[in-house]
């Protein structure tokens, strides 16, 4: 039982976080709360990718120890044990995803400030009511 829980626990966390983020994006009325939900959902997807890249059994950070330049310059071709380094590819992709997510958050916050300047509120229902009364 413990074995089963531990073997899938990160994926369960990912599912719960996606649920929380989706609920905040749909169910909450405040626009900042919706953005917080979007951030939580993005982090959940990144957690999923990094969990796929993890390796048990003594695997460490994907950085080579020792004298790297000497090994390169003199053509010494060491046999590198693949099982001793975690999978680096998901890390690279998620590095890009984090930076892009902060860019989308910045543009969304700028749009949110613009909405507040025009309607003087951040509540979705009140904004829709003002728009309906204005006949838009």
């Amino acid at each position, binding site marked *: 039982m413990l074995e089963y829980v531990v073997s899938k626990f990160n994926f369960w966390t990912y599912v719960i976080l996606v649920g929380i983020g989706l609920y905040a994006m*749909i169910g909450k009325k405040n626009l900042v709360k919706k953005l917080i939900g979007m951030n939580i959902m993005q982090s959940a997807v990144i957690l999923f990718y990094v969990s796929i890249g993890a390796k048990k059994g003594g695997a460490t950070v994907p950085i080579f120890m020792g004298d790297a330049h000497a090994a390169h310059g003199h053509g010494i071709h060491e046999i590198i044990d693949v099982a001793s380094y975690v999978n680096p590819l998901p890390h690279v992709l998620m590095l*890009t995803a984090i930076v892009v997510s902060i860019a989308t958050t910045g*543009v969304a916050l700028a749009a949110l400030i613009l909405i507040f300047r025009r309607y003087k509120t951040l509540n979705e229902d009140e904004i829709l009511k003002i728009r309906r009364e204005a006949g838009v």
Partner: protein
Amino acid sequence: MKAIALIAVLMTGGLLIYSIEGLPDWGDPDSPASTHVSPEYIQDALEKTATPNIVTAVLADYRGYDTMGETAVIFTAGIGCVLILRKKRKGKGD
């Protein structure tokens, strides 16, 4: 609205939980993601790029154009923020 949100969350969560059963175990060294292409990157990165950090080697050497496109995305986002938030000058057109 809360009911719609709960229904959507439950349906999405059910699909994701259904998909969890097909995933490999957490930290399995023999999972498909860890045996298909990543061993070649780990073995060849030091010899081909002379960078000890594999993540940096893949980010800046193997996928350099991807990183350049990412920089373009951030630049566009910054320009967008400036254009959205700037104050309109008075007496100039609309």
